[in-house]
């Protein structure tokens, strides 16, 4: 199964991500979930970025929180709403919200 996860929070949901497995996994960071793409704790990037997955972050949401695309982890691709629609229809079969 090709599964896309819309991750909307920073402090919750990582445990669920840890338990997910899919033939193809995409993690789309939206809302406060975009902090996973840029925030560091103790100098380390967020652990979910070590997951075998494709990572995306919604530009509108990370820019509204003061981040610019060059501050995102290199594993994360910036996307807009139109891109998210394309990901949902073209790249993944199932979509869940965390």
């Amino acid at each position, binding site marked *: 199964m090709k599964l896309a996860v*819309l991750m*909307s929070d920073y402090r919750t949901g990582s445990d669920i991500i840890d338990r997910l497995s899919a033939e193809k996994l995409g993690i789309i960071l*939206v*809302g*406060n979930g975009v902090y996973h793409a840029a925030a560091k704790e103790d100098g380390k990037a967020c652990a979910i970025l070590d997951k075998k997955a494709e990572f995306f972050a919604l530009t*509108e949401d990370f820019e509204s929180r003061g981040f610019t695309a060059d501050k995102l982890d290199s594993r994360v691709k910036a996307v*807009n*709403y*139109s891109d*998210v*629609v*394309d990901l*949902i*229809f073209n790249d993944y079969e199932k*979509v*869940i*919200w965390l």
Partner: protein
Amino acid sequence: MGKLTIGTFSSLVGSMSLDFAVKLAEAAVKKGHNVDFWMSGNATMLAKKGQKAFKDYSFLSKTLQEMLATGNFNITACEACAEARGYHKEDCPEGFQRKSMDWYLASTFEADRVLHIGGD
């Protein structure tokens, strides 16, 4: 083109997930997809007519009306959730529907993609 069903059980207008859901629907409609938008719980208040725009506050009514005008967008509030909040048929903006959850279930079975957004 496909059909996307979005079910939102989010908080009131102004919540991040409700704003996200409407913006995602808007992007999908602009790309020519059909969107069914279902509101349960407090999200039903998105379907209350007479909402006004304030500076720096979420205002989604205009976007919803523009999407309805395309003919590719259906927006439906859970009738029971609405009634429980004192929001009746006459409070519903033109073009908005009120149905039982059967409508949402049927929509998810017909859809190419489903996104169910939980409460916040």
